[in-house]
């Protein structure tokens, strides 16, 4: 019993020692003392950043050198890609002063404007649209013409978007749409596209966009309607121009 009392008293004294009342200084605060009494470093654990997130540690000079090397590599790759795209674009575009102009013209489009120009209300950008109705050979189409500032995607581009007329021969055009979708996938098109839209980039300052358009043409030219749309593109463009529309982007 006496031993128990002594042990209890010792415990009480220990508890009191660990509860200083003076603010400041090592060990103030009730639970602080046991934690900051000099014994804790053994308990300090280093939790590393996940290996998949961690990047190599570098001096500022090393970081600057790596940044420059990466920029150089990017430039080399970009120039190589630009050369390849320009060569690809040259198959169906004429290039003058950095502007690629679509050079096919079948003169196949006839039509008229439907209504007046409508603002596209693009957040942070500009653009408008106007619909025209016309014919490519035996096919009736509604061409929804858009003027959009595509920014870095296409730089300055003039593009005709045609939405297929759901009346008339629409059902006959389903195979054409499938060919078009496949071509878009093959050429990895990133241009805005919704089901039922066809587009033809008439002019662009971006060789990558021109190269992609050439790819689309090559992938879809076996389809009679798509071939007529592509080769008649310049006529459509002229028609639009003749109706006082400016579809050039700037």
């Amino acid at each position: 019993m006496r031993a128990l009392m002594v042990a209890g008293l010792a415990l009480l004294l220990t508890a009191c020692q660990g509860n200083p009342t003076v603010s400041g200084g090592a060990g103030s605060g009730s639970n602080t003392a046991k934690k900051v009494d000099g014994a804790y470093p053994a308990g300090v654990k280093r939790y590393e950043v996940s290996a998949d997130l961690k990047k190599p540690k570098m001096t500022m000079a090393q970081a600057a050198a790596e940044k420059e090397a990466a920029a150089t590599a990017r430039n080399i790759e970009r120039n190589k890609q630009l050369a390849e795209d320009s060569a690809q674009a040259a198959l169906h575009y004429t290039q003058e002063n950095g502007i690629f102009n679509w050079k096919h013209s079948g003169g196949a489009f006839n039509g008229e404007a439907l209504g007046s120009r409508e603002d596209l209300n693009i957040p942070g950008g500009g653009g408008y649209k106007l619909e025209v109705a016309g014919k490519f050979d035996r096919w009736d189409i509604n061409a929804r013409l858009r003027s959009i500032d595509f920014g870095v995607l296409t730089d300055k581009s003039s593009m005709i978007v045609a939405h297929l007329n759901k009346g008339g021969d629409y059902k006959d055009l389903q195979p054409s749409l499938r060919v078009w979708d496949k071509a878009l996938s093959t050429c990895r098109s990133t241009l805005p596209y919704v089901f039922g839209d066809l587009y033809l980039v008439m002019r662009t300052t971006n060789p990558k966009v021109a190269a992609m358009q050439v790819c689309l043409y090559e992938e879809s030219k076996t389809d009679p309607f798509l071939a007529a749309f592509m080769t008649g593109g310049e006529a459509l463009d002229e028609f639009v121009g003749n109706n006082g529309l400016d579809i050039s982007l700037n």
Partner: protein
Amino acid sequence: MNRRDFLKMGATGLALASLPGWANIANPERRLVIFFLEGGLDGLSTIVPKLEGRLESFREELMPDNLLDLSSHWALHPAMRATHQLMLQQDVLGIHATSFPYTKRSHFEGQNLIQGGGLAPFSESTGWVGRALDIASNGGRAMSLDTPLLLRGTTGVDNYYPAHVNGSSNPTTRLLEMLHGSLSPEWQTENDKLMARLNGRVFNSRDRSPRGLSEEAGKALARPDGPVAAMIRLGGYDTHAGQGGKNPGRLFSLTGELDTCISTLRKNLGDAWDNTTFITLTEFGRTVKVNGSSGTEHGYGTAMLVGGGAVNGGAVLADWPGLAKSDQFERRDLMATIDSRSICAAVLEHTFGLEHAEIAERVFFTPNLPRLTDRIYL
């Protein structure tokens, strides 16, 4: 205006400390920057302990979305994108569950204690950085009376503190030029430094925003003959209300501002970043539980950031105490298990080439202060 309103004003400021020309310091190229976060930083929302399952139950509305992951255990506040990248690049280290040993939760006592580095608030007339500079340089001289306590030394160091004084932006150096010839060589060096400063070559900006001050500090410290230490004061961390969490609140702006200051400092230091250490200091942490105003009350344990080219970053150092009620300090605050003075001592040891024992004894008056230098530096 009451005390709390004053703290909310979030006054910013920059103080630079230089050594006199004749001082002989071990590593004269090394620099120290202290971001002084006034008001009490909520460490639990800054470096979020994902390892702690209870946290969300205490403060769900304060838990930010889009945390910046560090590991399965920790994440950074979403406003600290630049700092996050620096942590991934192993240039910044997080320290958690840390505090100066001060538990009374008073801003003025706490701020005085973490600047003075003594054993009790208002016990010291000098600051721990100032005392370390004194030991490292064998003294210098004071050039400004409104130097923050943190940088004040017993014999004084060459300090600069920008003040709003009419005409101070365009002072004449004519008097100093006249004095130059009559001074001894070492005083001529000091005279030249003063003229350079007055000519605007050291500190020539009217931009007193935190970002602007960080830019100035970086430029000044990057100079081979520039100051060796700087303190940048950022206010407003007393987030009793509208702290933010799911929706950006005050802490989002504050941590974003700190993040900008850190990246701006690094950019303007350039190669000197490799020889610079920055740390964040705050007087205390905040309560674990959210209060009725979508904020937190004054607490105890908090988090620190230590960064720089020589820092062994890319990790969080902690002896995690847990957040069960019984593990909380006074059943309300995060327990501090790392004495922040150990971090400060490590920074002084590295930056000024002092012995840990001397720092513990003469700077912090705590001979048994644990040494963590090897845990912080490469």
